[in-house]
């Protein structure tokens, strides 16, 4: 948190760059002409009303859906993401809103799900060590990695899901509503986690409805509205501006003209 202003001054390498991404489901355009840049070591918050297209955008980036048109560049190279595995392989990890954990398996098994070491004779010792290393890097407090996920609290499960996303050393991690189901203390812990991940030099995309959380960790706030870009803000933008952009309450020709005039006159926003 302390060095956020510094990070903002010097954003890292450009990791991911979306240009003109559109996604249609039949007659519905869920996304239209979306542009988005993600740099290393920055947290980009993706905000918007229900149905604004946030989750669709995350799914496009996670390889769950394929964009109808537009281009995605990853580290300067154009890429297509045909499947979740392809996105993972590129280095884009996703923590889904429902976490997608298996409650009947223990923490180690969940972290290594689908990526087990030594498939024909599981290397439990090596996996357990790596699991503890990942959890310790996140300063997570998990009582035991040999307990089934069902015995963990919501915040602890979130931690396990984030630790799992870090397993393959991704460049970018996407968190879909990481704090939606959490209490005050657990939310703070997850926000701490997000900052630690950012400080490791990863790009973080975070979806949230909670303006406080967004403001607390985001370096940039990207607003989507009805499937379109509707402004990029810094965390010190006023609540009114943000809410206006999200709901579209101020999104009309008059307000835009007034804004333009003010900018031209060199007045602060």
């Amino acid at each position: 948190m302390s060095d956020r202003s510094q990070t903002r001054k010097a954003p890292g390498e450009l990791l991911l760059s979306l240009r003109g991404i559109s996604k249609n489901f039949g007659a519905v355009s869920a996304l239209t002409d979306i542009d988005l840049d993600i740099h290393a070591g920055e947290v980009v918050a993706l905000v918007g009303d229900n149905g604004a297209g946030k989750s669709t955008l995350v799914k496009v980036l996670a390889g769950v859906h394929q964009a109808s048109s537009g281009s995605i560049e990853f580290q300067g190279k154009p890429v297509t993401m045909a499947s979740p595995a392809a996105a993972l392989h590129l280095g884009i990890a996703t923590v889904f809103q429902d976490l997608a954990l298996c409650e009947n398996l223990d923490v180690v098994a969940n972290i290594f799900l689908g990526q087990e070491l030594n498939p024909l004779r599981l290397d439990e010792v090596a996996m357990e060590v790596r699991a503890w290393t990942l959890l310790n890097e996140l300063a997570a407090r998990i009582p035991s990695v040999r307990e089934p996920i069902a015995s963990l609290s919501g915040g602890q499960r979130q931690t396990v899901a984030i630790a799992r996303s870090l397993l393959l050393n991704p460049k970018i991690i996407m968190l879909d509503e990481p704090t939606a189901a959490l209490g005050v203390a657990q939310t703070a812990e997850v926000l701490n986690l997000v900052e630690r991940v950012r400080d490791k030099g990863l790009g973080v995309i975070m979806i949230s409805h909670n303006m406080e959380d967004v403001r607390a960790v985001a370096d940039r706030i990207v607003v989507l509205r009805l499937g379109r870009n509707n402004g990029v803000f810094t965390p010190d933008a006023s609540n009114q501006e943000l809410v206006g952009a999200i709901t579209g309450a101020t999104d009309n020709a008059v307000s835009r003209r007034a804004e333009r005039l003010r900018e031209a006159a060199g007045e602060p926003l």
Partner: protein
Amino acid sequence: MSQNLDRADARVTHATGLSGTIKAFMDRVKSGDLGSLPVVVGLAIIWTVFTALNPIFLSPNNLVNLLFDCSTTGVIALGIVCVLMLGEIDLSVGSMSGVGSALIGVLWVNQGVPLPVAIGTAVALGALIGAVYATLRNRLGMPSFVSTLSGLLALLGLQLYMLGATGSINLPYGSKMVEFGQLLILPSWLSYTLALIPGIVMLVVGRSTNARRRAANLSAGSSTGLFIKAVLTTIALLAIVAYLSLGRGVPWMFALFVALVLAMNYALTRTQWGRSMKAVGGNAEAARRAGINVRGIYISAFMLCSGLAALGGVLSAARLASSSQQAGTGDVNLNAIAAAVIGGTSLFGGRGTAFSALLGIIVIQSIANGLTLLNLSSSLRYMITGAVLAIAVIVDSLARQSRASHGRA
């Protein structure tokens, strides 16, 4: 000494020493993580009752017979464990075993096809049918309950068609096949040697794991505890072999069954495939997003189930020395499914062990065997087996609720 990696959290009490291990076990049971406990207790009760009613029940030769009978349905139950693990069901295993049995009669006895080829054909046909069930489920979303129910009827028809008008084909007495099903016993030196192996493996693997854990700065179990466990296991197995050797000895067919159980246990607990099976049974969508080939897992489970059912049919043909229209009908189907459930494999998916097939089938065959010794009709046998199954499912359900309330899934 520096703190172990997995012992950093002061809020958690860890079991240390023998008393700690016992206490941890009690806590697990209380929270509903019962494992094999209910079936072991149930088996003890059943054996006590039958022995009290008729002491012949516990005679070595009767137990050897029991083990012969266990092996055929047990192999089928082992396949059922695979599909139950995914929260699916295969209702056609009885008919499938009937088809396996009929194929042996038709191919080997009538057509003169070499025996290994006939057995291979039966198992391959089973695997193919399993692949069909899985494909129906994967591509058309057909619930396995329905697809295997129609499979039950279709396969029963196939069995009757193959056996034709005569209705049954006798396997030649004196052939290796029939001897395997009725007579062949492990030589005693071999059975004692095999009884020593689990303890030795336990000790060797346990010691090397403990050494690796210590080297990796993780907590390791005590070597004394490991040693005690290995010695107790060895003593128990040697006692069983010694007791059975008072009669005929350990049947080859039962040894084959146990070997399959051990192989399945390894596959389910120590391989990526087994981990994926549990994951798909627990949360198929999470498994898919983790990059697991969920469809492939379904295919493998159904193929194993039907393949093992066909193999069980082959074994039952050997046991009965005939391929008949009765093979695989009646209670075979339900006994196999009941065995897996009674042994502790959950109907709700995601929980189960290969050993549940072994324990469950011993329970079911003990009831059948004990009631036969008491000269009671099969009507009573069905009722009692039904009651035991109901109790097993109730225990599973209650344990599941208890686990949920104790936060153990």
